[in-house]
């Protein structure tokens, strides 16, 4: 009886150690590739938010090195788009609650804080095929050029219509994103207002 217990414990330990070692090796072997993918994804997101076109991954690196800098504002790392020494736009990371999970991304605003330059999502867990369509180009393009005032984004135009169309079948996610944009743009205007003037 005792030997059976001992064997069970030893066997479980041996199997656990073996598989964990293999997984740990695989993880550390692939970690540099995964980190590079993540960094590249972040850079691509920043460029998209700034509305800077790019074709290939190598072009992303090139454009990023040439025109994008970073700056610390109120403990947040802000990406700055510069052209010939002049600041064109800022991109600020944001975090907000979607319908199912956290939505992360970058919101870019023009240097004079008068309009949104663009938005890009880096993480979202919305319903595939419905809410996750916020990742589609047409949806994100709608936010380009939305005016900002000192209260943040003005998503309703003078006629009372919304400047941004929601996604059919994904009302809750659409509402959540609009809420995030309103809240984050207000925060960004307050945060950068001090730096810009």
């Amino acid at each position, binding site marked *: 009886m005792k030997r059976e217990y001992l064997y069970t414990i030893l*066997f479980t330990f041996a199997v656990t150690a073996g598989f964990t070692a293999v997984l740990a090796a695989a993880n550390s072997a692939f970690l540099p590739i995964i980190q590079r993918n993540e960094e590249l994804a972040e850079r691509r997101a920043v460029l998209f938010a700034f509305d800077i076109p790019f074709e290939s991954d190598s072009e992303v690196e090139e454009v990023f090195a040439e025109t994008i800098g970073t700056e610390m504002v109120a403990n947040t790392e802000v990406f700055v788009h510069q052209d010939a020494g002049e600041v064109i736009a800022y991109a600020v990371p944001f975090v907000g609650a979607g319908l199912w999970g956290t939505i992360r991304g970058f919101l870019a605003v023009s240097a004079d804080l008068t309009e949104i330059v663009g938005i890009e999502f880096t993480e979202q867990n919305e319903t595939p095929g419905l809410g996750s369509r916020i990742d589609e180009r047409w949806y994100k393009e709608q936010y380009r050029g939305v005016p900002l005032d000192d209260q943040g984004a003005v998503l309703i135009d003078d006629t009372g219509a919304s400047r941004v169309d929601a996604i059919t079948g994904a009302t809750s996610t659409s509402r959540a994103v609009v809420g995030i944009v309103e809240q984050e743009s207000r925060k960004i205007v307050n945060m950068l207002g001090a730096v810009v003037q």
Partner: protein
Amino acid sequence: MNEIRSAFRRNLLDENQVLRQILGICSILAVTNLLVNSLVMGLGLMFVLSLSSLTISALRSYIPHRVRMIIQIFIIAAYVIFVDIFIKAFSPDISRALGPYVGLIITNCIIMGRAEAYAQKNPPLLSLIDGFFAGLGYTAVLICIALIRELFGFGTVFGFDVNVLNLETWTIMVMPPAAFFIIGVMIWAASNVISRRQENRS
């Protein structure tokens, strides 16, 4: 050769894991609204199911009976994590699209079902073949449902627009209940075909 053929027949129709054993339904409802996601999910499951069956079968006479399920789940989880790392490293876009679903392969009842029902009592090579075809049977059903849902829900096939007539797409097809209706019809059809064949035989 005979064994391969019987494993193929058994897992693709007569004892199809989804249509006959009604296993793995949860993941079918979740991922089948796009063909690409279904295909990656199916391939991931086939990989995990084949190798976990092989491993469990190879270790079957050493695994203490008392803790066999824990060990099985552990082996399955190890392969699933490996698949997750692999997709993250070489196909980050698909990894993003599938989100948490890859990790959820661990809880797919088919894998535990095959481990308990087959790999435990059969030699490694046969278990590998059985696991592969069981995964293929699952993938086949997954692709059928995803084809119907993507075609009617988005008017696309593998992301290519085939909705040349510009017909209205059905939002219901994008929602999980659509998979429920389609799979119900498929289960009914499969059991009809099989029971008719048995009647003919007797």
